[in-house]
Structures are given as structure tokens and as C-alpha cells.
């Protein structure tokens, strides 16, 4: 029989290396994100287009069901590279933008507003670890709704579809992965840069929303005056569309040269990264 009086004692268990701090930050940030039901619902909606495209592919190759519905198969369902490009260009591009709008600004702003930076920095991790941890979350989430479903649909179609289709379309998945990563990094870095500089999450969201809306509105205005492709140089969405088609060597919908598209994304990402690092150097703490 013993009486354990509640006195303080330290922790002498084993400690993990300092390398895994980035993963710890990503793990907890993701876990907190999925604790809100609203976000889970929104994230589920982001998968609706992927599922519907899957069904489309499945139906295409199961003729019996289609014949009863008397739908002329060949005219509607031409599943080719354009099919996947449309998948990435329309539903997934805007959904990934909305996801970045919802998640991105909330990455750093709350920590700035609630003065949580000293809690991180007083531990054995640097601000770069913190930023990489947050960036990783964004990149993973955005990948899950851009190139991951695209590549999956591609291989499912290759499996179901005609022989030899896989061989002569092999460059498609790589095109999807490369261009989607460019798009993901542009969105994530811009969102993180705004989140790192603006204390209030809502204000960062407006600025993020305003920035993209403004740039496409500007693109419209320029197209009105100049015509030609100069207008779409301002819009990141058009750049993404051009890059996908170009990488998949399909006819490019907008006459903008792909180099301008790449430049648009590079400039945006570089500017955002510079803003983030500027925030790192500024030794503001509490």
C-alpha cells in the first residue's frame, strides 16, 4: 500500500530525431482540418466529378446498358486524351482553386493571430520546417483532386479500353502529373504567402479570391482591346489549360504560346516564395 503524492517529475523516455518535425506539423494540421464536418463535406464534393467520369468510362465499355437507353454511343462518348484534359481543365481546376481558397489562408494566419509562433520556434524546429509542413498538406490535398484521379482514370480506361491504347498514349499520365504539380505549387505558394502576411484568415481569403478574379477580369479587358492571346496571359486558369494540352501534345485551345503559360506560373510562384522567405527573415516573434 503506498501513497503517491502528485509531485513533478520530468520525462526521460526516448526522443525522435529532429527530422520528423515537418511530418508532425502536417499530420496535426490535416487532422485538425478534417475535424470540421463542413470541410469533409466540401472535400467529398471535390470527388464527385472524378466519380462521374469513372462512371462515364465504365458505361462506355458496357454497351448493353447503353443500348436500352437508346443513346447514340459513338457521337457522345469519344474517350480520348481530350476527355482527360477536359476532366482536369474544367471541374478539377476550379475545385482545386476553391480548395486552395478554403484551406490555404487558414494555414498560417490563425497561428499569427493567436501568437503561436513562439510555441513552434522555441522548440528544436526552424520556420522552414514549419512552412514545409504546411505546404506539404496543401500539395497532398490538391494532388488528391487533380493528377491522382486523372492518372487513375487513365489506367482504368487503358485497362477497359481498346488494346494498344496505353502504349501510344503513354506520355499522358506524365503530362498530367507535371502540369498539375505546376498548378498545385502556384496555388499553394500564393495561398501560403497571403496567409503568412495577413493576420486575419478571412481577409487573406478575400485577397486570394480577389487576386485571381481580378487577374482574369483584367485578362478579359485586355482581350477586349487587344484580342489575341495577350489577355489570357493574365489568367492562371488559361495558363493551366494551355499547359495540359501542350504537354499532352493535343491542339492547344488558346493561341497563347506555352512558354508564356509556364512563365505566368513561374513568376507567380517565385513572387510568392520570395514573400514567404521575406517573412522568415523578418525576425518578428511574439
Amino acid at each position, binding site marked *: 500500500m503506498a501513497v503517491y503524492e*502528485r*509531485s*513533478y*517529475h*520530468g*520525462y*526521460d*523516455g*526516448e*526522443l*525522435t*530525431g*529532429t527530422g520528423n*518535425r515537418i511530418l*508532425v*506539423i502536417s499530420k*496535426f494540421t490535416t487532422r*485538425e482540418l478534417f*475535424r*470540421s464536418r463542413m470541410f469533409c463535406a466540401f472535400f467529398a464534393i471535390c470527388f464527385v466529378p472524378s466519380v462521374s467520369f469513372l462512371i462515364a468510362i465504365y458505361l462506355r465499355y458496357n454497351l448493353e446498358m447503353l443500348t436500352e437507353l437508346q443513346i447514340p454511343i459513338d457521337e457522345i462518348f469519344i474517350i480520348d486524351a481530350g476527355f482527360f484534359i477536359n476532366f482536369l481543365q474544367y471541374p478539377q481546376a476550379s475545385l482545386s482553386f476553391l480548395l486552395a481558397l478554403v484551406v490555404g489562408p487558414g494555414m498560417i494566419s*490563425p*497561428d499569427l*493571430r*493567436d*501568437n*503561436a*509562433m*513562439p*510555441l*513552434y*520556434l*522555441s*522548440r*528544436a*524546429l*526552424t520556420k522552414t520546417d514549419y512552412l514545409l509542413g504546411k505546404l506539404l498538406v496543401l500539395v497532398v490535398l490538391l494532388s488528391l483532386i487533380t493528377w491522382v484521379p486523372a492518372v487513375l482514370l487513365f489506367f482504368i480506361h487503358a485497362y477497359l479500353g481498346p488494346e494498344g491504347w496505353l502504349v501510344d498514349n503513354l506520355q499522358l499520365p506524365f503530362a498530367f502529373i507535371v502540369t498539375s504539380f505546376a498548378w498545385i505549387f502556384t496555388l499553394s505558394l500564393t495561398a501560403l504567402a497571403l496567409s503568412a502576411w495577413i493576420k486575419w484568415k478571412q481577409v487573406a481569403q478575400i485577397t486570394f479570391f480577389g487576386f485571381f478574379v481580378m487577374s482574369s477580369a483584367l485578362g478579359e479587358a485586355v482581350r477586349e482591346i487587344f484580342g489575341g492571346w495577350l489577355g489570357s496571359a493574365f489568367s492562371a486558369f488559361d495558363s493551366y489549360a494551355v499547359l495540359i494540352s501542350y504537354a499532352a501534345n493535343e491542339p492547344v485551345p488558346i493561341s497563347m504560346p506555352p512558354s508564356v503559360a509556364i512563365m505566368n506560373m513561374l513568376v507567380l510562384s517565385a513572387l510568392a516564395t520570395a514573400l514567404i522567405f521575406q517573412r522568415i527573415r523578418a*525576425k518578428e*516573434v*511574439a
Partner: protein
Amino acid sequence: MEADGAGAGLADATTPPPGVRNDQPPPADGADLATDARSQPVIELQNLSVTLRGHPVLKSLTTRVTGRCIGLLGPNGAGKTTLLNTLLGFYPSTTGSAKVLGRDIRERAVRQQIGYMPENDSFIAGMSGVNFVRYMGELSGLPPEQALERAHEVFFYVGLGEARYRNVEAYSLGMKQLVKLAQAIIHGPRLLFLDEPTNGLDPPARTRMLQLIREIRDSGEARVIISSHLLRDVEECCEEVLILRHGEIATYCNLAEQRRSIEKFLLLQVVGAPATDAGPDPVDAFVAGLRDRGCEVGMQNRRRLRAVLPPTMEVRNVYELATALNVQIRGLDHKRDSLEDIFLRAMEGDHRPGDGS
């Protein structure tokens, strides 16, 4: 500027006796610390200077801090927070160097052994209390299972057991301070930096916080540095005090040694019978009587007197006068140097109020 006499004398002092609080008997067990932990200095500064935005804030500080619990004091803008932030690696030191627990502050691993409790409210929104502390634990290197287990342990230890599943931003001010302490001690650091731990707490919460700090200090597993403006709180926990002024060390001394007790300086709390219209008010008569006997008497307010007895007079004579005038001596104490006096002495030569850098 070399620290004044008292401070310098300490550099080679032997182990200072456990702190004697002003009017409570000394702790019974006289915590027996492993001697090696005692002699190894907590913080060594080698003319450390820090300039922020072109403004010199710390001016070549040199000292070796060895106590178990050290109070960091100084007027606003003296550089307390800057010193803390420099030791934590937030600000780069302009010149000179500093060692914490024997390792240079530029090493990232040194922060593994430090626990830091920031001054202002700081938490992560949307997280439950225990989840927040567990996250901080894993960030300090604890593996996931131990982090969760340890999070619950420290939560119960700081007395927040029942609120651990609620969100931190719904906590009261006192609970936020306790959860900040919990995240600072979860990884069992060997050195704790507490920035204004009792600021804004109501009396019961303040007592509990001071009790926790004393327990951590007496456990011998961690040294504590407290930066605070509340001198009574520092007096209750700390054995040593480092006082900064204008970015320099004004005093670094051990509290017990500094408390010169002045026998003849009395603090009195008196209550006279209600002033009947017959004679003068008893309390005024009492004061006049003391002055007749050669005492200097200062009246803080109707109830509180300060009296300096002449060599010839004893406490007994005071009671004689009180009995004669039917005045009750509700409170009597020999005035000892409180931390406030040590602080004011350190500030001597600084008559410009509100200096602020």
C-alpha cells in the same frame, strides 16, 4: 559597467541556502540537490550584445547564473524580453556569445532541453486542450504514444484535468496560463523560461501557479527562470534575482543574503478606540508619544505606520505606550529588505521616471 559589489561577490559563492520566504518558516525538507546539477551553470553570458533595428538593447552582458530558480527583473524596456528571446534563438546576438546548460545557443539541439512559456496568450485555435499539448509534445520530439500519455499526465498535474477536452480558446485567462505551463513541461525540459507566468491571474489561480513553480523547482529536475513585474510572486519562488537596467546588469544577487534585517525599523498596524470628543484621537496621541520618545514616524494611512526606534528604545516600550493609550497593535513586524527595496536600490541613480528605451 561592472555589476555592483553585491553581484560580483556572488560569482564564486558556494551553494546558496534554500530561499527563505519573508514570513513563512523555511521548507522542512531543504531539498537535497545532486551537487553536480548544482554547480553546472544554467546560463553563461560572455559580453553578449544585441542590437534591434539599429537600437542597442543588450549591452555586453557577462555573468554566470547558477541558481535553481532565478528571477529576471527590470523596468519596462530594460531588455528582459530581448534577453529571453535571444537565449531562445529568436533574435541573433550581435556580438559576444551565450551558453545555456553548457551548450551554445546557436545549436538547434539546445532548444530540445528548454521549455518556454510565452508572455501573451498563445495557443493554436480549434484544438482541444489535451490535443494541443500532445501536438507540442510531439513537436518536442516525444513519440506519438508517449506524447498522448504525457499530455494527460501534465494536464492533471497542472490541475486542468476536467477541461482537457474543451477547445483552448474557450479557456479562461487562468486556464490558458496553466495550459501554457503544461506545454512547456511536457517534454521534461532541464530549463524553464516563464515570461510573466502570473500576469492577469486572479488570486487563487496565482497561488496555484506559484505552488506549481515551487514544486518544479524543488523537484530538482528543471531550473526555472521567471521574468515578471510582480515582485511578491518572484519573492515567493526565486532564490536569486538578475536585475537589468538599460540593457546592462544592475544587480545579480541571492535573495536570502541580501535581506539585511533592520532591527529598529518597525511596521505597525494600529487601531485606536473611536475618537471620543473628550480627548484627542488615540492614534494621533500614540504617534505623538512615539515622536516624543525620539522615533521617526511615517503614516502610510490611518492604519499603517512606519517607525524607526532610537537605539535606547525597545519594542516593549512601544507596548507600554499602546497600553497607556488603549491603542491596539494589530500588526507589528521588523522591516526587512523586501525584493522591492533590492529592486529600488538597483535602480538608484536612475531618477528619470518612465525612461523606457
